[in-house]
Every structure is written in structure tokens, then in C-alpha cells.
């Protein structure tokens, strides 16, 4: 459940930026024959609604209706008393507090005479909400709008770039707190990193640790006592005002691995700053790997925000102007290394 800093301010996320996003999406909706669009949100799938309105739920769920014109309508089972708080983070939408958010938006689209309405991630829509919508708007055709949304949302604007950069500063600074020689317990390290990120104003911080990189490079959310081996890795997944990044850093106590890890970190920074749009990521990675001595790729993952999830795995060719989180696992002359960094795709 979200319990970090949540709030909206005009300097970080100008209303004009939100209005421009909505206008872009409405253009795409019109081109694709949608009279309106519906977006489900909860704290696990908040990102589409956050991108459109600035609002992220800390609890419960709701549905955003984006009509073809006029203000968006946010219907939620959160109580009327919480509406004042919602208003502090969503200054655009009409807020409807109702035990049946699906019925509320269903009635709106039926009353507006909508014929075809797009639903983000339609197959995954909770059945209870679907039943409410279909019950209130039986004549309206509901169709998946995920691809149309992803194409529009993929290109980030200046406001989002700044929020992502702030989230990255928090993650990087939190990982900087780790003293490789003093760290002995994974739970203490996780607590230290999380505390630093939250003290900096993180909305959320998920910290995961691979306590013994030589034995297992998988990272787990650690709490309690778990001894750290000579080589370990820490992942900080950090959100700031709805913008998410991941950073992974590998740590070693032995000098040989420290040198290797320092080179890998510098290499990753260089890779992250040089990914170009319009070219397959795999090809670009393969070319970069040749520049890191002794490196062989064990696993890779690219994530981006294209729907309800803050970060979801993507495998397509990234467009210029988009954002990725790149996670890599390498063997560096037999030494295991994992790293992750945000990427603003250039070109």
C-alpha cells in the first residue's frame, strides 16, 4: 500500500501538460473510432490514470472515463471523505464517490450516446466492474484500446522526464548509502536504502537484494536478517509522483571484483545514454557488449510504462523520445554482475 509522499503541484506537473496528454489521446481515439475511453486504476495498475490526471490511489480502486470532450470523470469506491484528498492530486476530473464505479461510468457513456468505447487492458478488467458497466450500458460496444493508448503514451514529455529524473536521483542517492565493507545484513541494507529514498520524498520504494551473487543472481524483497556474502546486489525500485525507475547496483568486497564492477557501472551508464530509437534494442546491446572486456550476457529485460503498470516488460523496438528501464545480468570473466538503469531513448 502506498504510504510515501503523494501530492501534486503545478511546477512539477503543469495542468497544461496533462491537458496536452489528454488532447493527444483524444486525437488517437478519434482516429481509431472510439467515442470515449475507460481506465481502471488501483495501486498496482495506476499508471494510465496517473499519466492522464496526476492521481494515484493509495488504496482501493476506481475507473476514469475520458469522454471525447469535457472533463474526465473519476468514479471510485473510496469514500466521500477521501474526495478532498483525491482533489489535491487530481485537479482535472469530476470525482464521483460511489460503491459501484462501473455502474456510474456505464451510465455516463450510455447517456452520452456512445457507440464504441475503448477499455484499457480490457481482458484483465475486473469482472465485477465489467458487469456493472455492461449492465448500465448494454448497447455500447466495449473494445480494447491498449495499443492505441500505448502508442500515444510511449513518448514522454518534459514534465514526465523531470519526474523520472527525480525518481532516479532518489534511487541513486539511496544506493549510495551502502558501505560495501560495513554492510553485513541484507535486511539492514534494505531498510537503509528504503529509508533514504522515503526521506527524500519517494512515493514508493521496493528494495530487493541478491545476498550472494555467486550463488544466485535473483533479487528478493528482504526483511529481517539475512547475511550478505562477499558479492551482492541491491535493486531500488523507486517512484516519485507516479514516475518509476529501477536501479540495480552490484557490490563486492574483493578488490578484483570491485574493479570489474566499477568498469561495468561506467559501461552501463554509457549504454544508457546512447540507446537510440528506431533500432532493435537487442542489436544495440550486442554492439555495446563487445566494448566490455570479458562480458557475456546472461539475461536482459527492458521495461516501460505503456498501460496500467508503472513498468512492464517490452520487447519491441523503442521509439525515439520514449523511456525504458534496462536490466542486465552479465558474466564478467566469470564474475556475476547485475545492473539496471533508466534510459531516455534518443535519436
Amino acid at each position: 500500500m502506498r504510504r510515501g509522499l503523494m501530492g501534486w503541484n503545478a511546477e512539477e506537473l503543469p495542468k497544461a501538460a496533462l491537458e496536452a496528454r489528454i488532447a493527444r489521446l483524444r486525437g488517437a481515439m478519434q482516429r481509431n473510432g472510439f467515442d470515449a475511453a475507460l481506465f481502471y486504476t488501483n495501486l498496482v495498475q495506476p499508471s494510465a490514470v496517473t499519466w492522464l490526471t496526476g492521481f494515484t490511489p493509495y488504496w482501493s480502486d476506481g475507473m476514469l472515463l475520458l469522454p471525447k470532450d469535457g472533463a474526465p470523470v473519476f468514479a471510485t469506491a473510496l469514500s466521500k471523505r477521501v474526495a478532498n484528498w483525491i482533489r489535491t492530486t487530481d485537479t482535472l476530473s469530476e470525482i464521483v464517490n460511489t460503491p459501484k464505479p462501473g455502474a456510474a461510468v456505464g451510465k455516463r457513456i450510455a447517456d452520452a450516446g456512445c457507440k464504441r468505447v475503448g477499455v484499457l487492458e480490457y481482458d484483465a478488467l475486473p469482472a465485477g466492474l465489467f458487469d456493472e458497466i455492461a449492465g448500465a450500458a448494454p448497447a455500447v460496444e466495449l473494445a480494447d484500446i491498449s495499443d492505441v493508448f500505448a502508442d500515444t503514451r510511449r513518448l514522454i514529455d518534459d514534465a514526465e522526464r523531470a519526474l523520472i529524473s527525480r525518481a532516479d536521483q532518489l534511487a541513486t542517492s539511496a544506493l549510495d548509502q551502502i558501505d560495501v565493507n560495513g554492510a553485513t545484513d541484507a535486511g539492514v541494507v534494505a531498510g537503509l536504502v528504503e529509508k533514504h529514498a522515503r526521506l527524500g520524498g519517494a512515493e514508493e520504494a521496493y528494495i530487493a537484494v541478491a545476498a550472494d551473487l555467486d550463488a544466485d543472481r535473483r533479487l528478493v524483497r528482504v526483511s529481517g536478517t539475512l547475511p550478505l556474502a562477499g558479492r551482492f546486489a541491491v535493486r531500488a525500485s523507486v517512484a516519485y509522483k507516479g514516475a518509476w525507475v529501477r536501479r540495480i547496483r552490484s557490490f563486492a568486497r574483493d578488490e578484483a571484483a570491485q574493479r570489474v564492477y566499477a568498469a561495468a557501472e561506467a559501461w552501463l551508464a554509457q549504454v544508457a545514454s546512447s540507446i537510440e530509437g528506431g533500432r532493435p534494442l537487442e542489436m544495440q546491446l550486442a554492439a555495446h557488449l563487445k566494448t566490455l572486456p570479458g562480458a557475456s550476457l546472461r539475461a536482459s529485460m527492458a521495461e516501460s510504462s505503456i498501460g496500467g503498470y508503472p513498468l512492464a516488460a517490452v520487447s519491441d523496438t523503442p521509439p525515439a523520445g520514449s523511456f525504458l528501464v534496462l536490466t542486465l545480468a552479465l558474466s564478467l570473466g566469470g564474475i556475476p554482475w547485475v545492473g539496471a538503469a533508466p534510459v531516455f531513448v534518443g535519436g
Partner: protein
Amino acid sequence: MSVFTDRRARLLQEMAGEGLDVLLLYGNAWQNDYLRYATDFGILEGQALAIVREDGIALYVDSAIEADRAALECTGIEVVHAADLLDEVDKALNRLSNRRIGTAPARLIPRKLAARAKDLNLGDRTSFLDRLLMGKLASEVDAIRRACKVADEGYAVFRDAARPGRADYELIAEAEAFFRSKGVDDNFQIIGVGGPEVRGMAPPSGKKLKRGDMVTTELTPCVDGYYAQICRTLVIGEPTAEQNKAFALYREAMEAGIAAVRDGVTAADIARAENEIFRREGLGDYVTDQYTRVRGHGVGLFADTKPHILEDVTTRIDAGMTLIVHPNTYHPVVGYLVLGDVVAVTKEGCEVFTATPRELFGQPA
């Protein structure tokens, strides 16, 4: 046996008693109690579905990093990384034709799967799971007792962190760091800072604490999957006579509610006992939904589980249930005020697990 082993054995036994061959359970980081009951997985990112059968449990997770974690943390469970979650589970359900399949929570089952209810013989069995979630095994009650101890300790950390000039989110950061070192893998927490203008609690907004502020919080750490909650109010500086007077009323209401808890009463009986104290003082308006949500609720694998303690909820309270009794509401003179303790229902009454004193704490200003 671990609490999870106990729980799984009970689930399979009760499924047989209900004539259920299979359960399809949904979970995410918000609503994870149904899924966790059967798998013990505390999901953070993405979504998961579990297929529970007598001969095994399969957990389908759509996030690669969560699948890695589940594979390490969940013993005796088949973990499947399903990038296309619905497609994979759909295929798995196809292999279970002619079985009686129950779903929970039915409201959150993805539409694509729910649409196949007829041909897959799916039926809503949310209430069956709700019964198991509410009526705890002895080992579950013990787990909640342990969680309450951590909640008490966490509140002490929170209280120590409350100083003039600090931002509300910094207090939560201190508590979270403590929780990570104590094996707490999740926490639900909201906060209120100020005076009569404060109408409720919400996530931190960056408000800085100052002398005279009341700081309310509902702190809900999760230990081994079980959430325990504590609600307390502190004042930056010495509490005023008005604040002390208001707090005494809330303490009396909470203690009246706790005194009403025993096997065989209803949730409404507990709520009524709390609310009568407010009505006696002419504050009856402030126990309506204009000012407050619930007068307590169940605690367990979800931070806000059934039954909700309200005057219109007739759910029977049974021995083995665990509840928080909290008469949290707005007070017209001093603002929103909270106080709540966790109890375990017994045949004769209840055992109070929360040990933090029932005080309006004054923090040095």
C-alpha cells in the same frame, strides 16, 4: 507445522467439505488475502492467479521479477512466470474440464476468465474464502499477536520521529526502515497532521509538523502475511485541556467497544457500544458516514478485512476472529482523532494484543 502449512491443510479439507475440486484465486498488492491464503506469496508488482487442487497448487505470476521471488519464497508451490497471465491460466483451466471450480474474490477475477464461467463450471465462492479468512486458526492468531508486538514497536519509532519541522513522510520513512529490519514486508499507513481543519487521514503530503499539531496515524505492519494495526494520536508539545477531554471520550468509546466483544455478539453490537458514548455527549452526527468510515474491522491477511464494525453489519462475531476496535472520527473541537487496539475474540470476551498505552502522547516541541 508453520502457519501456512496449517492454513493449506484447512483449505484443502474445507474444499472437500464444500464439494469443490478446484479454486481459482486472484491477488495483487492491494487485495492479496485470498491468494495469500493458499500460496503464502506476498505479491508486490503485477498480478497473480493461483489454481488450487488437492494434488497441488500452481501460482501464475505475470511479472518476471516477482516470479523469481515467488520461486525462492514459496515452498511446495509450482510457480509459473506467465507473461500473458490470462492466456496461460485459460489454458490451464481448459485442462480441468468437468471439475467444480470456485473463484475468489469473484469481483476481481479478470473479465476474460469470468466470461467463461459456464463452459468452465466456474462459480463465485468468495463467501467460502471469507469465512476461512475471518475465523482464524490458533497459529494464525499467534501470528497476529506477533504482528501486534511489531506494531507497538513501530509506533514507538514513529512517535520518536515526530518532531517540529519534520515532514509527515519522514516519520513514515523512519517507521519503514525499522519494519524492514524486523521482517515486515508490507505496511498500510495513513497520517493526519494539524488541528480542527483535519477531517481524516491520508498518505503524507509533505506537511511539516509544528507545535500544537495533533498527529494521527493508523499503522499496519504485515508479519508473515498477517497485518496488525494500531491507531494512536500524539500532540507536538503538551496536549491542551480540550484535546485531553476529547481523547478521554475516544478512550471510553474504544473501551466500551472492546468490552462488548465476545463470541456470539454481532459487529453491530460492538459499533453500537462505541457510538453510544458519542451520542451521550451530543456527538452522534460524528459517528455517521459523513465523518467516519468504520468503527473497526477484521485484521488478518488483509489490512481491512471483514467484518466491518458498523451498526448495520449483522455478521456474527465468533471466537477465533481478530479485530481492531477503533472509534476514529472527526471531533468538532480538536479535529480528527484516532485510537484503536487489536483484540482476539474468545468464548468469554477477548484478549487485547495491543500493548501501547492508551494515551494522548505529548511529544517535546
